[in-house]
């Protein structure tokens, strides 16, 4: 059974049909790439999955459980986490605080514990801090816990966005253009990071325009154009698919 089953998802914005009956499966343990021209509906699809938009029709099932139309915090609770296209962080909070907010979901802390600073709260907070240190070491940023998020360079902010998404301990991670506007060094680091995330057991779906990232990382690729899925398959199948080449990849020049 696929980890994530998307069936006939349709999303309208007034008169504009952004997604038209999209079907997609995501299998446990794979890295699935989602590509397509700008405005195709890729981010809209992510927004529907993560609960920011409610679809007009269709259904989404995660690990057998229906999650269509649930609020974002419920989706996060069920094990799906995501990053955003524009770097979305808590700008005026420190790196540590950014991570602490994300860690809240799995902390098991109740409001009462938080307010009164009960022994349980103090113990949990200490555990969370050490987990945060571990995660930051995993991404190589542990030395900067007290720096404000907005003071990091763009490249590092993307990595932080990834780290923050990981604090919710997702089983499925949706990455929206993780390689966007990164210089080659940072790009390589992010690529390796995604590989390591995948190796730790997390299923990854990523939207990308950078074809080297897509063909370098993904087991399977889905192509979306004008709200419709026009192809799905292995990287080789996608490369050879005429519709995809016409819609997006561009004609191959002489080999």
């Amino acid at each position, binding site marked *: 059974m696929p980890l994530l089953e998307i069936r006939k998802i349709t999303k309208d914005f007034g008169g504009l049909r952004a997604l038209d009956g999209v079907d997609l499966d995501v299998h446990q343990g794979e890295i699935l790439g989602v590509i397509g021209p700008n405005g195709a509906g890729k981010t809209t699809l992510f927004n529907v999955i*993560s*609960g*920011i938009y409610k679809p007009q029709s269709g259904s989404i099932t995660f690990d057998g459980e229906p999650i269509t139309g649930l*609020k*974002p*915090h419920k*989706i*996060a*609770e069920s094990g799906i*986490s*995501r990053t*955003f296209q524009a770097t*979305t*962080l*808590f*700008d*005026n*909070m420190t790196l540590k*605080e950014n991570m*602490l*907010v*994300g860690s*809240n*979901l799995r*902390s098991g*802390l109740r*409001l009462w514990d*938080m*307010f009164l*600073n009960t022994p349980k*709260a103090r113990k949990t*907070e200490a555990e969370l801090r050490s987990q945060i240190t571990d995660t930051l070491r995993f991404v190589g940023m542990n030395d900067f816990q007290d720096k404000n998020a907005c003071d990091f360079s763009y490249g590092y902010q993307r990595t932080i966005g990834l780290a*923050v*998404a990981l*604090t*919710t301990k997702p089983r499925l991670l949706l990455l929206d253009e993780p390689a966007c506007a990164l210089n080659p060094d940072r790009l390589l680091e992010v690529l390796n990071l995604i590989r390591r995330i995948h190796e730790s057991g997390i299923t990854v779906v990523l939207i990308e325009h950078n074809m080297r990232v897509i063909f370098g990382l993904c087991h399977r690729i889905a192509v979306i154009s004008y709200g419709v899925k026009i192809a799905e398959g292995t990287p080789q199948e996608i490369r050879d698919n005429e519709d995809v080449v016409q819609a997006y990849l561009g004609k191959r020049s002489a080999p």
Partner: protein
Amino acid sequence: MNRGMLAKLIGLLVLTVVFCVPVFTTDLYYVHTLIMVMYYIILALSLRVIMRIGDVSFAHAAFAAIGAYGSALFVMKVNMPFWAAFPLAGVLAVLMAIIIGFPSLRLRGAYFFLVTFAFGQIIVIVLGGYWENVFGGFTGLVGIPAPEAIGPWQFIGKTPYYYFILALTLITILVMWRIDRSRIGLILKSIAERDVLAHSLGINIMRYRMLAFVVGCFFAGIAGSFYAHYVHMVSPEGFSFMHSIQIVAFCVVGGTASVAGPIIGVGSLTALSEIVRAQGPYEFIVYGISLVVVFMFLPEGLLGLPKRMSGVVEKLSSLKRPTRLSV
């Protein structure tokens, strides 16, 4: 001695002075002013926790009205002892906050302002214009009795009220400070900073918005209850939109970054309005002008002043040195 210890020492000193005022002053005007200052501090601090989620409520004076009228009516019409009516007034404010909160807290920015403004006006209009046999119309309720004595302490004169409001203020400061320091404060800050991200990280933003709103309105309610049984009368014009703006001004002028902000805001604006009042009835102009000045020059409020000052000092000192080309 580090900054933390110094702050605590200053705090303790201020506390001791404040505690002893009624003992040393026979001038009731000063005692009354301090009582009102503390009343406003509670209102400002309770508004601040609502502002922590990123939006400003312009209905805060109305929630004080709910507490004031509620408490007065519980005591006068239902013969409840004050000490039961007092917390119940807070509960009443909480119920109204939940009713008003559900539709409004989904909204942000200007829309939240409009809805809270509308609710605030509705409450005041209802209190002034409907069920006059209950609410007393525009003249409101008079002859609201004092709280019953606690043991040997009777509520005659100003001193017992002074210590009562002092205790309330300290409790409010403690609660707000504790919220700030805890994970709750962190989550509220994150919702104000970027609510979509917080939502996607598993935070139930509606629940936390409601929590902040309810806590803020509770303290406004009990402050209102105190007010009613201190001045012994309440009328709708004592809780008008102008008063809501006044409370907003306390928070904005003082700054909302920490619990100290509203306290500084109340202190400075009250002092300023006292000076202006000597010249004439220009009190509310003070609040209006200070709001505008702060928006333009000091958006973090007076709390941001040290940062600004050090920035200005840096600029001035760099003017003296000739600019060096960086190599």
